[in-house]
């Protein structure tokens, strides 16, 4: 009987014939923490009596959620993390380098690996064919020390996407549509495996957006096969030699198959306060917003800024809207400057924040006021997420965000595509 992607990867990394429903102990190829989950992880590591890391070269501490630090408590946390990295020989990604998941994709993740991170959006690396999943601080501490973890092999859903994306419609709309239809608990404990003609030709940047949001349907991982696009991406990142082809077996067993026609998708928005509370952008016309945020691990890449810049070029964001741009990494920022996107966005009235998580999780750089509404390209819109339980967060693609910034209301971006 054939294997799904999840079964293949976990079989390989556990040295067993791993099947859905079984518990395995798998080697961990990359383990990381970020600045708001790291301090607890490192304290627990010490509490458990561990004195060294299993694989220092593949243990990373990312400073990204509060950069530069907005208060002394977080500044002290950063100091603790830097000290620890130096003492234990772990890698440190310091203030300004970028968001952990973006950097993991740019520099670290490879097909077939098991990756654990103390952040739920660790699933992002599934776009590269890695079994990448988020865990709590203590679990990641054990993974850092032992180089392995226990995992339940998930059942898999096959998401087959046929057709082609129409102008103004993107991967963000696809994943929001999927989560809206199966629900925020529609894929709890499952592996989402993406396939079909629209997936086979999909650029890595868009794949990362989709994998990033797998957790918002409750999934353990969101996986893509490792194909020629994966190989091109890895080569462009200087690690082409890490490519290996990875695909599910033709006779693999899936618990559920969901078919989506990309040609029928329209710009989609998640309304407050859950990711599965979706509607079409055009249905929300008239909804006033006071802030637009284009960035995050979901949609803060060069390609996302390019889309936003193409819509905002020669236009201005609405006078009642604060347009905040957060490139997901330093490299994205530098390339966006080179390409002229930052100039375009600033000229349109945008405000630039450093490469990092920015206002996504409510600590700084765009906290909302009472009753305010924000259209964000992030992955989560829970009540209070951006720092104020009396505010409202809508999620959409960079195109929807840019269009909305111009109109001052939630807007369908297709009106800007002629």
């Amino acid at each position, binding site marked *: 009987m054939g294997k799904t992607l999840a079964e293949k990867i976990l079989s390989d990394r556990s040295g067993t014939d791993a099947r859905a429903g079984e518990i395995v102990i798998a080697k961990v190829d990359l383990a990381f923490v970020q600045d708001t989950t790291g301090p607890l992880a490192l304290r627990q590591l010490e509490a458990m009596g561990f004195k060294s890391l299993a694989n220092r070269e593949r243990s990373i501490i990312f400073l990204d959620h*509060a950069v530069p630090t907005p208060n002394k408590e977080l500044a002290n946390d950063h100091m603790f993390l830097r000290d620890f990295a130096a003492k234990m020989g772990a890698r440190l990604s310091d203030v300004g380098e970028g968001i952990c998941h973006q950097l993991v994709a740019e520099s670290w993740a490879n097909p077939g690996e098991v990756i654990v991170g103390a952040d*739920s959006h660790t699933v992002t690396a599934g776009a590269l064919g890695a079994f990448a999943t988020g865990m709590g601080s203590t679990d990641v501490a054990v993974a850092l020390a*032992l180089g392995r973890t226990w995992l339940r092999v998930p059942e898999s859903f096959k998401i087959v996407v046929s057709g082609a994306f129409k102008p103004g419609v993107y991967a963000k709309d696809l994943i929001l549509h999927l989560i809206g239809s199966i629900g*925020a608990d529609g894929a709890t404990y499952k592996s989402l495996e993406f396939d079909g003609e629209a997936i086979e030709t999909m650029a890595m940047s868009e794949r990362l957006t989709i994998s990033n949001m797998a957790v918002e349907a409750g999934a353990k991982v969101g996986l893509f096969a490792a194909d020629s696009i994966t190989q091109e991406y890895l080569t462009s990142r200087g690690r082409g030699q890490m490519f290996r082809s990875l695909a599910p077996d033709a006779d693999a067993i899936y618990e559920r198959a969901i078919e989506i026609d990309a040609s029928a998708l329209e710009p989609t928005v998640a309304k407050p306060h*859950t990711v599965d509370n979706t509607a079409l952008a055009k249905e929300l016309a008239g909804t006033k917003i006071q802030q637009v945020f284009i960035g995050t691990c979901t949609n803060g890449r060069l390609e996302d800024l390019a889309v936003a810049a193409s819509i905002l070029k020669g236009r201005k964001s609405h006078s009642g809207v604060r347009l905040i741009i957060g490139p997901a990494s330093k490299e994205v920022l530098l390339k966006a400057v080179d390409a002229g996107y930052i100039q375009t966005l600033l000229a349109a009235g945008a405000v630039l924040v450093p490469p990092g998580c920015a206002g996504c999780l409510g600590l700084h750089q765009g906290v909302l006021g009472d009753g305010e509404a924000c259209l964000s390209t992030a992955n989560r819109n*829970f009540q209070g997420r951006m720092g104020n339980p009396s505010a409202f967060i809508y999620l959409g693609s960079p195109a929807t965000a840019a269009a909305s910034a111009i109109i001052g209301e939630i807007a369908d971006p297709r009106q800007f595509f002629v």
Partner: protein
Amino acid sequence: MPEMLGILRGRAFKLGDDISTDHIQPGRYSYLRSNLPELAKHVLEDADPSFVSRVRPGDFVVGGNNFGLGSSREHAPTIIKMAGVSAILARSVARIFFRNAINVGLPVLVCETDGIDDGDELEVDLGRGIILDRTKGIELSFAKIPDVMLTILNEGGLVPYIQKYGDFKL
């Protein structure tokens, strides 16, 4: 085969569906994560601001569907436990939250919670897998926790488990 042993008794704090990790530990307080007692003062603040002052040791948090959806922040079940809650009951639980709760030694019992109301007196027999709502006179069973997690829970959480065994034992 590991078992959970003991009888837990307390009041139910009934919450609705979709209690997220932002309801449990609001993001705006994340800068307090290295000061857990201070962070714990804000537990469930955005779901029920009166929770932290009303909860008594031994009480239960009772939710509906998809309890704990969202973030991997282990701080969420940690501060619920610090409030003295002895177990979480819910119709369904998000994956990362479930594993984190077990890791901090907080039992999570998946059962039909629709009939449990706020303030009901509950008695939970961990060994027999039974929940008795003494106020309503109804008896419920909860879903078995996988053996690997039960062993961790019975040691009091992942830290004492690792202190004892040094590694994962399947």
